């Protein structure tokens, strides 16, 4: 059975890359064989990881938490791998490429969420819960109702985040490897289902660690190449960047994104507290053996994310210098005119990838493309696992079966849920291909910040919390976020303005950048 699933996955990947060649030839693009080779290698390594994990995933503790046996360093890397989505790597370097300094503030916002998670959440979460954050949220309160609210919040976040990630993934893979969107989305969906349904948390963790290491190696390599290009002088980098960028020297100072205090603070709040309500991140704290381990893993994760905040601006500013003066990186209009930001081939999100090609040739280009691909896989796997656990542990195991479900059956429910979530996400990603996905990613982050985070924070930090208060608070956050998104399709701006103060309404201008992935 297990072997058959894995063989099917391998067969799908092979046909996927065969298809890549076909479309690339049709599209007249030259194929980067290094990228394709690296991509196949990553798929093979992750499937091997999954195969080895399958034998060790039997009990529900194995499935949800890898038996609480992950070490703090491994968990720290996995958290960073879970958290640093393509938004961090491609999106923020694109944001810096487009806006300069503002992109760096954005990166700082999501780094600042981490100490808060550590001080307020990590150890109590680990002490009070065993598998999902709903365990900790419902510990002192009515188990059924609080758990249902927390599980619903988790599922909403997971589903919308997953759709946004899948659509982003489809587009990125389409650009990187020349594969058709449909194949890209189905391929990613299939891989994530296999990782989670077959290998559970063990496989997901190691996929995330592999991704984090690749991202660290790729990021460091590229940072060195960039610094080498500018003789290790940041002054030269900034001076040349402000010479070529359309905004001129203004790229070095704060601009539009954070100009107005109200929207700047709401964006900051969403970035900081959204992190503390993401179910796939919170779930990772249960994979270590105790609260000391949970704390240490946040420290390692924060260090990784901080390192990224240091190297990502290098890519953004270097991309300005290297790409902007060279018309060959742009879709040039009939009169030889092009917009130095929006006309970048493949959109501004491709800034880091083009930079890799320009500075390091096809080898670095291939490597960075493959890293971007691994980045996507690790995040969607973490999301699928969190969603499956909300269904099987919270809704089935604790609410429907009242904790009496046979363990084997609960694990089976989790695996079926993983497959179902994967199929739904793929289907929705195909339906919404040409929609602006910014609102979905926005919804995910706003539900995380306004439903999951307050329920959990009230339950574990405030002694006076009652069940009714926690349930009401969670539902208000959940429904106001949902309502504003439903309405926003028709009355986007008006609703953005008052229904969800946590949502960065001013940020739609940059929605082509990070929100796609977030």
């Amino acid at each position, binding site marked *: 059975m297990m072997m058959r699933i894995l063989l099917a996955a391998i067969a799908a990947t092979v046909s996927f890359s065969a298809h890549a060649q076909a479309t690339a030839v049709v599209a007249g693009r030259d194929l980067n064989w290094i990228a394709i080779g690296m991509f196949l290698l990553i798929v093979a390594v992750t499937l091997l990881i999954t195969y080895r994990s399958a034998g060790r995933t039997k009990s529900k503790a194995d499935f949800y938490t890898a038996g609480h046996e992950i070490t703090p360093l491994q968990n720290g890397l996995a958290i960073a791998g879970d958290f640093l989505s393509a938004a961090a790597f491609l999106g923020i370097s694109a944001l810096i490429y487009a806006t300069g*300094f503002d992109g760096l*503030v954005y990166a*700082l916002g999501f*780094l600042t969420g981490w100490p808060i998670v*550590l001080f307020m959440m990590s150890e109590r979460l680990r002490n009070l819960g065993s598998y999902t954050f709903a365990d900790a949220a419902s510990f002192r309160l009515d188990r059924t109702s609080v758990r249902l609210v927390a599980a619903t919040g988790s599922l909403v976040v997971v589903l919308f985040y997953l759709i946004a990630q899948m659509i982003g993934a489809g587009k990125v893979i389409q650009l990187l490897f020349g594969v058709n969107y449909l194949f890209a989305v189905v391929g990613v969906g299939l891989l994530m289902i296999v990782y989670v349904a077959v290998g559970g948390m063990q496989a997901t963790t190691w996929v995330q660690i592999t991704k984090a290491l690749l991202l660290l190696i790729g990021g460091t390599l590229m940072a060195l190449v960039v610094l080498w290009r500018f003789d290790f002088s*940041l002054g030269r980098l900034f001076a040349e960047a402000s010479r070529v960028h359309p905004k001129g020297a*203004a790229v070095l*100072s*704060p601009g539009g994104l*954070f100009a107005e205090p109200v929207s700047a603070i709401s964006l900051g709040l969403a970035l900081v507290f959204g992190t503390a309500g993401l179910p796939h991140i919170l779930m990772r704290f249960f994979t270590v053996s105790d609260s000391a381990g949970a704390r240490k893993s946040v420290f390692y994760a924060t260090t990784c994310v901080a390192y990224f905040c240091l190297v990502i601006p290098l890519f953004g500013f270097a991309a300005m210098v290297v790409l902007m003066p060279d018309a060959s990186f742009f879709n040039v209009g009939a009169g030889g005119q092009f917009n130095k930001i929006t006309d970048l081939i493949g959109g501004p999100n491709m800034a880091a990838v083009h930079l890799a090609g320009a500075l390091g040739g096809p080898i670095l280009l291939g490597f960075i493309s493959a890293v971007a691909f691994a980045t996507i896989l690790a995040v969607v796997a973490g999301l699928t696992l969190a969603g499956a656990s909300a269904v099987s542990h919270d809704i089935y195991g604790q609410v429907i079966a009242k904790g009496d479900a046979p363990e084997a059956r609960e694990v089976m429910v989790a695996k079926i849920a993983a497959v179902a979530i994967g199929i739904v996400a793929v289907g929705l990603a195909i339906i919404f291909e040409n929609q602006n996905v910014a609102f979905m990613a926005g919804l995910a982050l706003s539900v995380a910040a306004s439903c999951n985070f307050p329920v959990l924070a009230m339950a574990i930090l405030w002694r006076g919390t009652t069940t009714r208060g926690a349930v009401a608070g969670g539902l208000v956050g959940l429904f106001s976020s949902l309502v504003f998104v439903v309405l926003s399709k028709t009355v986007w701006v008006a609703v953005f303005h008052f229904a969800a103060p946590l949502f960065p309404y001013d940020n739609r201008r940059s929605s082509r950048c990070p929100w796609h992935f977030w």
Partner: protein
Amino acid sequence: MSLSLSSEQMRKILSNPSFRELTAARARLRWGLSIVTLLMFFGFIGLISAASSALGKSMAGGAVPLGMSIALGMIAMVVALTGYYVRRSNTYFDGLTQLVRRECGR
């Protein structure tokens, strides 16, 4: 574990001086560091909307603009704050927890 405490044991733990010191000091550290972190970030955002052009200028003799230097400093601060909290918790507080356990006979 803690669920099986009798009310007698509970009273004993709650009135234990080491336990009181532990919870008070830990709350101080937790809330103090959180406030420092949030003030730092939102203070920076406030500074941006108040004095954005000044942040684009380089400091005398330096090549890196002022805003960029502050941002780099904040990245370092975040790592330092988490590192400090983890060290303090995993040595001092966990030691104190062990002490409470021993004193309360558990």
